[in-house]
């Protein structure tokens, strides 16, 4: 089990709209949210939290470009330099015939590269155990979590009252 060495104060909401409202309220009160956990991708959550757009697609483009260049370059090298053979009277460098494999390799590199990148940057992988706050977060609870490591009791009380005041059904704290 991995650990973040954090003390986390969190509230569980029953409805995503209530949670979104609470997030906006927290932003207005300048409370620093550590993370939000949901059972499904909630529409509008990125905006409410002010998350910047994922740059995963840029990496996908780069991997795809590498795949395309490698594939096309390799076939060109084989048929013009390493072992030129005439097939059906076509030129050695028969570029149109290289397109299907180039395309497949573009897709393969982009997909595999992006998936590996996704799991790596999310800190996930086969058998990885990331600490979770509550088992019901993957079921029907929406969770707003504050990092309360090195905070005073007064600050924690303020966050606690914010959570219960904004509609959280349960408020709890946990060391993860």
């Amino acid at each position, binding site marked *: 089990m991995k650990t973040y060495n954090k003390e986390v104060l969190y509230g569980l909401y029953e409805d995503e709209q209530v949670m979104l409202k609470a997030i906006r309220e927290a932003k207005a009160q300048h409370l620093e949210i550590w993370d939000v*956990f949901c059972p499904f991708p909630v529409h509008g959550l990125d905006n409410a939290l002010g998350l910047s757009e*994922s740059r995963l697609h840029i990496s996908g483009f780069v991997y*795809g470009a590498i795949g395309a260049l490698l594939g096309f370059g390799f076939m060109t090298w084989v048929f013009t330099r390493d072992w030129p053979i005439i097939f059906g009277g076509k030129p050695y460098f028969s570029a149109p015939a*290289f397109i*299907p494999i180039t395309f497949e390799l573009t897709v393969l590199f982009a997909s595999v590269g992006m998936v590996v990148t996704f799991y790596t940057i999310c800190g*996930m992988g086969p058998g990885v155990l990331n600490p979770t706050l509550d088992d019901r977060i993957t079921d*029907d609870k929406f969770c707003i979590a504050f990092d309360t490591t090195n905070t005073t009791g007064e600050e924690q009380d303020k966050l606690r009252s914010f959570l219960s005041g904004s509609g959280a059904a349960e408020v709890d704290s946990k060391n993860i």
Partner: protein
Amino acid sequence: MSASVSPIREPLVTGGKTYHDITEDICSPTERTPSAAWVLAFIVSVTGLAFYVFCVAWTVWNGIGTWNLNRTIGWGWDITNFVWWVGIGHAGTLISAILLLFRQKWRTGVNRAAEAMTIFAVICAGQFPLIHMGRLWLAFFIFPYPNTRGPLWVNFNSPLLWDVFAISTYFTVSLLFWYTGLVPDFATVRDRAKGIRRRVYNFLAFGWTGSAKHWQRWESLSLILAGLATPLVLSVHTIVSFDFATSVIPGWHTTIFPPYFVAGAIFSGFAMVQTLMLITRKVLNLQDYITLEHIESMNKVILATGTIVGVAYLTELFIAWYSGYIYEQFAFYNRVLGPYYWSYIGMMSCNVLSPQIFWWRKLRRSVLVTFVMSIFVNIGMWFERFVIIATTLARDYLPSSWSYYTPTWVEIGLFIGTIGLFFTCFLIFTRVAPVVAIAEIKSILKDAGDQYVGPEVARKKAESATATDTH
């Protein structure tokens, strides 16, 4: 959020479900002991699989001579089965990728099972090109690897090699796409599990927490994988059709093949999705998630693609006549009236005529009619590939080499065996993984749940509005 959905649109989730109900309904089949029906189906499937292994061993031990292929007919049931299985696989990608790009919400009910079907169908398809090489242990020759023969490379100009790349890429990308979609749902199962099950799902869930940033990246990844899978799926069957279209055999050498094959693939794939989903929804009690609305949508796709395929058949006949090329004309005359006329009749009646009943809404929404039709289409699409392959080869340029072909028990066994392989995989899947995408169903609940949208809700709203007006 629900502004984009018409209030009178039919709901896609019925039964007034809450988020917790969804988790409960979809996870519980993986948590119960299997029903007697499942055990029986599994025994039958595994028997089929065992027979498959036996037939492969028989072929490898005794050689391809155990098949009835001859000098004239070099491709028979083997490649027919290959194309049939690949085609079936396409519907899964279509549902999960193309319908995601088109924002079709009904795909959420069936995408998980359809993608699983894709993966298992591609596994079955991949068997045939390998086995039909005869010397299975030299199968690695198809890959370009540095070797001591020069190195002598593979022919990158050959559609058969394009196929190697297309099918292996397709399998890899489908698997990644499917598994990435499964990870959050495995986490849901994990968080309900105890003991040894918890440990297994801990491993499978990859440490998913449901963090906002992870969801954002997950959605971004899904969208781009869908964007990549869409041209990929079209390319795969295009390349499969190139196996035929780039040859010089009359009846194969046609430019219509790529679109015609892709339409046929979607057609047969949706039929197989229907076959599977109609049984699955009944056995696992998922009628609230895979509703008549879903079945009707898929029947519309079957009708549309079946008709496209029909137009392609007629276009082929017309062009053969119009080209004035006698070999082409003979190839098609032979298809319709030659020794394999019965397979042409099977193809035409199952693929073109019978789906026309789906012009009637009542029949589109009938579970029984849909099930029977889906079996018809599966058979018809097998006939299509058989017509294209065997009838064309049986009557080539030289009448002296004309021949007829019937399969041996080994070839039939290999086909039946892959069906066993397919259903073994699918039955295991229904036991270990959520058959419906839990997170995605939850995300459309407020747009498509029957307590939020639908004609009933619209009527009630209208009633309460008039009630308040009169006060």
